[in-house]
């Protein structure tokens, strides 16, 4: 039983990371109807840019490697890069494709995936790098002593970060003018126009926010597994998360991420050995597929009626 | 009440309006609590032109969607050719000889006029995948036989000069005509037309009117028509049913409907 909980909690915590990536998808999908396949690549780009700046800044500015200044400066620069990347994407890729079929936009973001990955590695190189957030990946003693369950401090931190992020996003959407405009856009583009904020500004902001979310996700993930190309594949796991949670639901992204994270770990541990292991690679997709057949609109998605 | 009316329905020379072939009883339809149609009953006789009119949002298109199986009403019964119709899909309705056009043109944008109309003959084509892949032989013979039929429709609708044009490039009025052609290609016994003349100029409307009358006359096709142009409706319909807010408020010959106080109220109310 203890083992089960350990696996469950570990899974839930890695699910938090899926949630963070999925969150970026949801934001963009809500605002512009674009299914941004490149969100995973953007996470990779963000993490690589952050690490890259951490490496080069001390040399450029004569700072102490590993200092807080370097950390925050790299964070700000990486964030700025993400915003620029987001704005450029919006301007160069999506705006010319406005009013095109969704499938075309989707394929364009696949192209974007390649482009972003290529650029990131072209600038920073393709080596695997470590990323240190200063949090030690060791079990929380208090919890281990009381219940015997191993929970990593790092995972807890990641969960907390995700929680903060989601809460602040929720507040942002709920209480700011731009947030309200964003929600209006998701419902009806015409209505959004009447609020008085140009659609393009809104999309710009959304891509900026999505960049920020990608950066946070990338840093946490990078700190855990190292910054490397494989990150983009792991990020693909966000897709089944979306199917579970629905494309338009922020809570859906969170819950979906947790379900996927937990179930893939449990499946790996309990079913894996029966079939030779490694089922993590496909289990989330099959789960999502099975789920689709039952409830195509996702857990929190809105049911759609085709009017003829 | 409707029996009295049909007795007086105009009978065109040579065209005999026959028995009731479609009977709708107490049809109600709602979408997640929103009532689109409430307890609607009416019937359609063989060979007649039956119009459905009413203000916007009266439920006219929903009515057509019920008839050809796109929507499944929660309540009510549909009898088609005497037998009770179970819940069925549009393609089953098509197999029973019901074809239709749509309010917003629903052509296959990536295909030519010819191919669009050819799809209308899908139900009549029997060759399978392998024969299609081999082409030469049965598949080619079938294609040619149906092409010949489709060409007759193209000739009938006078769209020879655009037969190989992709439909996306055509002006609106011609697209409507092509859509009618696609419906006709199925050689339907009943044709549902959803605002076939919307957005057309006078000349195009005249043409479309002529085609509808010719179809009804030459092929004996029963026609259920939704149309906003009252002049056209009153001119070509045998009987008219009037809907408002999903309820039936009038049913009868054009003259009767014109003098029905409820209908007048609905239309005056709608126009203000």
């Amino acid at each position: 039983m203890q083992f089960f909980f350990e696996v469950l909690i570990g899974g839930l915590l890695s699910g938090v990371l899926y949630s963070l990536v999925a969150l970026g998808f949801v934001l963009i999908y809500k605002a512009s109807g674009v299914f941004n396949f490149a969100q995973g690549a953007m996470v990779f780009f963000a993490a690589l840019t952050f690490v890259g700046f951490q490496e080069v800044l001390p040399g450029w500015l004569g700072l102490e490697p590993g200092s807080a200044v370097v950390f925050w400066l790299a964070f700000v620069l990486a964030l700025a890069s993400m915003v620029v990347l987001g704005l450029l994407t919006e301007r160069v890729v999506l705006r010319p494709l406005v009013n095109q079929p969704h499938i075309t936009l989707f394929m364009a973001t696949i192209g974007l995936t390649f482009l972003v990955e290529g650029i990131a590695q072209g600038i920073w190189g393709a080596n695997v790098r470590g990323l240190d957030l200063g949090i030690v990946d060791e079990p929380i003693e208090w919890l281990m002593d009381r219940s015997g369950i191993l929970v990593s401090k790092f995972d807890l931190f990641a969960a907390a970060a995700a929680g903060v992020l989601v809460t602040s996003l929720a507040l942002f959407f709920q209480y700011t003018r731009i947030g309200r405009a964003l929600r209006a856009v998701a419902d009806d583009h015409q209505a959004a126009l009447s609020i008085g904020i140009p659609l393009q500004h809104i999309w710009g902001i959304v891509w900026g926010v999505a960049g920020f979310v990608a950066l946070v996700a990338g840093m946490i993930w990078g700190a855990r597994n190292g910054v490397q190309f494989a990150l983009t594949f792991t990020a693909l796991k966000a897709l089944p998360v979306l199917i579970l949670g629905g494309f338009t639901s922020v809570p859906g992204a969170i819950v979906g991420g947790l379900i996927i994270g937990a179930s893939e770990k449990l499946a790996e541990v309990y079913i894996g050995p029966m079939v030779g292991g490694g089922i993590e690679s496909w289990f989330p997709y099959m789960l999502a597929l099975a789920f689709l057949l039952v409830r195509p609109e996702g857990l929190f998605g809105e049911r759609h009626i085709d009017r003829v | 009440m409707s029996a009295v009316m049909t007795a007086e329905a105009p009978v065109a020379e040579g065209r005999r309006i026959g028995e009731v072939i479609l009977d709708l009883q107490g049809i109600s339809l709602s979408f997640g609590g929103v009532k689109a149609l409430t307890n609607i009953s009416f019937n359609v006789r063989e060979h007649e032109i039956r119009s459905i009119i009413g203000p916007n949002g009266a439920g006219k298109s929903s009515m057509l969607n019920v008839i050809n199986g796109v929507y499944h009403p929660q309540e009510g019964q549909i009898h088609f050719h005497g037998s009770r119709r179970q819940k069925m899909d549009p393609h089953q309705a098509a197999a029973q000889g019901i074809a239709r056009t749509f309010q917003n043109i629903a052509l296959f944008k990536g295909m030519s006029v010819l191919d669009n109309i050819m799809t209308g003959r899908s139900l009549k084509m029997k060759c399978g995948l392998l024969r299609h892949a081999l082409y030469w032989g049965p598949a080619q013979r079938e294609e040619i036989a149906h092409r010949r039929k489709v060409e007759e429709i193209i000739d009938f609708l006078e769209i020879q000069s655009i037969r190989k044009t992709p439909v996306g490039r055509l002006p609106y009025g011609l697209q409507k005509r092509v859509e009618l052609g696609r419906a006709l290609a199925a050689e339907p016994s009943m044709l549902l037309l959803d605002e076939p003349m919307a957005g057309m100029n006078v000349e195009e409307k005249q043409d479309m009117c002529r085609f509808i009358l010719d179809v009804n006359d030459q092929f004996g096709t029963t026609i259920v028509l939704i149309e906003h142009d009252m002049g056209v409706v009153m001119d070509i319909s045998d009987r008219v049913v009037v809907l408002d807010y999903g309820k039936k408020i009038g049913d009868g010959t054009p003259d009767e409907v014109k003098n029905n106080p409820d209908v007048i109220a609905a239309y005056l109310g709608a126009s203000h």
Partner: protein
Amino acid sequence: MLYREAGQFKTSYSADQQIFPILQDRYGYWVILAIFGVLVPMLASAYWLKAILIPVLIFSLAAIGLNILTGYAGQLSLGSAAFMAVGAFGAYNFRLRIDGLPFLVALILGGLAAAAVGVLFGLPSLRIKGFYLAVATLAAQFFIVWVLVKFPWFSNNASSGVITAQDVVILGYHFDGPQAKYVLTLAVVAALALAAKNLVRTATGRSWMAVRDMDVAAEVIGIRPMRAKLLAFAVSSFYCGVAGALYAYTYLGTVEPEGFNLDLSFRILFMIIIGGVGSIMGSFLGSAFIVLLPILLDNVVPAIFGNALGAGFASNLQLIVFGGLIIFFLIVEPHGLARLWQIGKEKLRLWPFPH
């Protein structure tokens, strides 16, 4: 300019419905076929045949498969490589386990195996569309590769699933040289491309396009969308499967499941985007483009920049160029090279008029 169409009138529907109704196109087609069928195998070097022409043909076939599904039936798939894998391992196992099974029969059986698997993974398409379906096909991609790796039965107990294709023998003739393999590949691909063209110009193809363009209208005129979609999945997977089998038998000889990864699926998708969605010829153009571009980059980049940029740069540049091209084509010419070809042809037909 080259066309002389006056006087080419059609007195029968069979003449009017030819694949190439214009005489000059027919000539062009036979000339191209003669060049690639006769001249190329006589003149091309082994490198060109083995490393370029054979893979171009094989990927063309896979691209035709994906194009049937995506371009004609409108169902996006990210799992083409997995279906190729099924074809490759299917053909291998059929030959392994059935004594004396003729190669071509094994090829078809491999394709049919892929078709069966394709239908299975196409089932969700009955309820879902667009991105949802794309994600569903990812499941196929990962699951199939995993199965082939994890169950050694499929690779005759070879380590990590690597298989070595048996000799290709048809009617006693051994296809072992690059020439022979090229000619065989060309023959299979040409025949299947013709069949695909036939499918898309008859009722089957029209039902796919109808479902793609307006599924409600398609259903209303009596097409069953479910049937049309599953058929598209089956045919598409069949083509990918045969391509996969050729990939093993006439191209690489030795393949492993991991070779049929997501990246390959993406590459096939890129072929149809760049070549032309909804065009058989576009599949060939796209395949040639995607196969040749990296070779071109490998040769051109060092020539311009020298070796200073390092080996990693070339692969990154390839990513950037592919990604950029995809976006460029989707924005500027969503119907790809095939459309450009067609525009050029229209220009020639109307020359000297612009339109």
